[in-house]
């Protein structure tokens, strides 16, 4: 039996359906009446950090770095042809990605939704790996890895993560290394597939002018019921402290680039905490903020300046990034400002502007079917509700933020990564 719940939001006038499907899969449908575009995303809670696991209390398996990403590439190859070729006939725009802690397959279209939807549900549930097809991919992915070695944005971030984490695999390249992917075999791919691509560990989110019936008539026919089992992910103990507070790499760039990370104690976020953190991020990075003005007046930043909250299985951090003539001075200004607002509290008007910016951004996000479906899938894995978060943002107070600030952004536990030109 499928269990269907409608979730409504008085504030936005929208609603969506959560379907606990009898196959074990959780399906979200967010109807957007009058929209021509439709978007579907099918994802599993499995990414590059899941390198050691056990199934139903069995032995712990260690698998090569980069295997989740490799598996994503190989999924498109079906016994009866390439999934991209199938999509070309329906006119859908298809893609997939692997991140630190999830793998997702998606498409967008305006016509022939059901045909594309069938392609998606079919190929993600039907693995087909042989010695030959697995070997073929090693060259292509090897090139992808080398391409990232040439990217200063990528280098400055991974140098930072390597200096932040002692043990946690979030410091490893998502695609692995040329050496690690050479160890991948069809058997290992099947092991990972049957562990993580179990419908109970997955989510399907759809947005567009569609009804529950539209979704269920295909889902009921295509989803193969999965038995629920327990997956245990293993991570080595990670110390609270960063590895070192500074790293620099020489690279031909016009202006030095930096990543400044504030390592936090790893924990699972509550929705209210997330709302407060988003406001804190705005206070520290929006062009309307006092910190932005400070950095801009000192000519330390340009429009590339940004701050984000970075979290997943076993890692939480604030990351600042940008281009700067002096990354060290920039990091000092940011840290001093944070210490200041931790002691004196945030200015009332400053807080109100940040709250409205975050709220406006969250509500505006409901204009886009892509954004809605991506957020529903993401929030499923985090245990958040898209409407609940908007309500939480609206109700955050200055007092909440000042209290929250006391427990986050430890200016004594940061690492600065810099990429600068050999001449400078």
């Amino acid at each position, binding site marked *: 039996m499928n269990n269907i719940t409608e979730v409504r939001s008085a504030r936005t006038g929208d609603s969506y359906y959560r379907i606990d499907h009898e196959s074990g899969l959780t399906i979200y449908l967010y109807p957007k009446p009058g929209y021509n575009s439709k978007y579907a995303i099918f994802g599993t809670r499995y990414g590059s950090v899941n390198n050691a696991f056990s199934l139903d209390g069995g032995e712990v398996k260690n698998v090569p770095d980069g295997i989740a990403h490799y598996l994503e590439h190989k999924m498109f190859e079906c016994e009866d042809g390439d999934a991209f070729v199938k999509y070309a006939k329906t006119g859908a725009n298809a893609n997939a990605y692997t991140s630190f802690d999830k793998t997702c397959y998606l498409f967008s279209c305006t016509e022939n939704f059901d045909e594309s939807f069938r392609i998606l549900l079919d190929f993600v549930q039907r693995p087909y790996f042989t010695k030959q097809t697995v070997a073929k991919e090693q060259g292509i992915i090897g090139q992808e890895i080398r391409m990232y070695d040439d990217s200063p944005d990528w280098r400055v971030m991974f140098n930072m993560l390597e200096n932040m984490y002692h043990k946690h695999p979030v410091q490893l390249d998502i695609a692995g290394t040329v050496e690690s992917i050479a160890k991948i075999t069809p058997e290992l791919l099947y092991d990972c597939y049957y562990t993580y691509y179990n419908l109970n560990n997955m989510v399907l989110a759809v947005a567009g002018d569609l009804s529950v019936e539209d979704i269920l008539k295909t889902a009921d026919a295509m989803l193969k019921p999965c038995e629920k089992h327990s997956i245990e992910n293993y991570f080595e103990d990670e110390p609270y402290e960063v590895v070192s507070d500074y790293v620099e790499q020489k690279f031909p760039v016009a202006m030095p680039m930096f990543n400044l990370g504030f390592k936090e104690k790893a924990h699972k976020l509550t929705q209210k905490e997330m709302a407060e953190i988003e406001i804190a991020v705005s206070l520290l990075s929006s062009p309307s903020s006092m910190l932005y003005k400070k950095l801009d007046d000192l000519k330390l930043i340009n429009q590339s300046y940004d701050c984000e909250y970075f979290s997943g299985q076993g890692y939480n951090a604030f990351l600042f990034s940008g281009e700067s003539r002096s990354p060290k001075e920039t990091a000092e200004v940011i840290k001093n400002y944070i210490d200041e607002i931790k002691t004196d509290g945030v200015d009332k008007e400053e807080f109100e502007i940040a709250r*409205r910016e975050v*709220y*406006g951004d969250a509500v505006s996000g409901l204009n886009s079917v892509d954004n809605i479906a991506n957020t529903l899938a993401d929030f499923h894995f985090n245990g958040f509700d898209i409407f609940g978060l908007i309500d939480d943002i609206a109700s955050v107070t200055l007092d909440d933020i000042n209290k929250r600030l006391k427990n986050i952004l430890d200016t004594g536990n940061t690492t600065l990564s810099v990429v600068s030109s050999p001449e400078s």
Partner: protein
Amino acid sequence: MSVTKREICDGVWLNSVYDNRFKTTRLSANILLPLDADTVAVNALLCYVLVRCCKKYPDFTTLSRKLGSLYGAELNGSVSKMGDMQCLNISVGGLDDRYAIGGEKIISELTKLMCEVLFNPKVKGDSFCSEDVEQEKRQLIELIDAEFNDKRAYANNRLIEIMCEGERYGVKKIGTKDQIEALDGSDVYKAWRNMLKNAYFDFTFVGYDGADNIAELLKNSFKEINRTPVELSTDVVYSVFGVKNVVEEEDVAQCKLEIGFRTACAEPEPQSTATRLMCAILGGTASSKLFNNVREKKSLCYYCMSRFARLKGIMFVESGVESSNVEAAKEAILKEIDDMKNGIISDFEINAAKLAVTNSFCGVTDTVGGTCMWYSSQLMDASVDTPRQAAEKINAVTKEGIVEAAKKLELDTIYVLESKGGEDE
């Protein structure tokens, strides 16, 4: 969804698109002036100086805080070409009033901000502040440098300059570095006065409610101005006298081959629908002739596509090729065009292009920005089509219509951007 068009005053129009699907609204102004080599640079600079700050919000931080307090609203400026006109676009956008936590009147605030930006800039006497002008000059020059670094865009711009020499369309949309460097605050002030008096203003509002209020605010703001608006016009060239062939060298890894054709037909002529579809069949989609035959089957190019400048009546074929393949690619592209003229077009090619074009029409109005662009791009037309209506017109085009459109194509200019010292490296 419905669209209404009303006249605010002489040469000032407001299109309002009523659409209740969106959480946000947008008011966008297309400000049109003739493309003229002597004025494009100062007009472009004016556009960016206006959105930088204004008398009421005199610096970046106060303006950012105002926008922030309006739930993270946006104020943007950009410059483009619309046929033979230079188009300065200034837009404001933000959350719809229905979603403001404290019941704020966001749309009204944003309209007032638009009026402050247009009518009440930060000026001293008869000049804009030199600090603001210098900052925006620097950014505009960076924009020109970035365009130079993007060799594909650079090659296309060179083709247009060569092909349309002596035509207004051949003028660069933001002028040259030297022109920009020579400008000061009083030049920008004169351009601003000229804009208010002489430009054609086309405002588009996309939202749920508030168009009447916007019309009222705009009417009041234009009241004091003695308007003598320019006429919107674009010269379409109907026949070509001799093909131009130009080869230039730059520091590029890959050659750029750019071919320009006159289509002898432009919007709003009704036949331009067939030309649009013809161009899509030739090289506008992943199932097009250029993509499949020239790129995929013959592997002659890294990219090969065609684009219809539909207000001007020009079709561009753009391609990236190895130096040794330039001649072969040229030949292969011209052969595909001959095939079109001779009616060698399959039903699959026609249907795939129809599907792709109508899909993109329908998808575009799922965003506020896309909706705004869709309606404001039709400002030269007598009547306004919804995406569905435009899709019906595309679907009604017959094979004969497509061949007819292809037969009108006349080769005008072939431009090749070669790599310096090419083969030695």
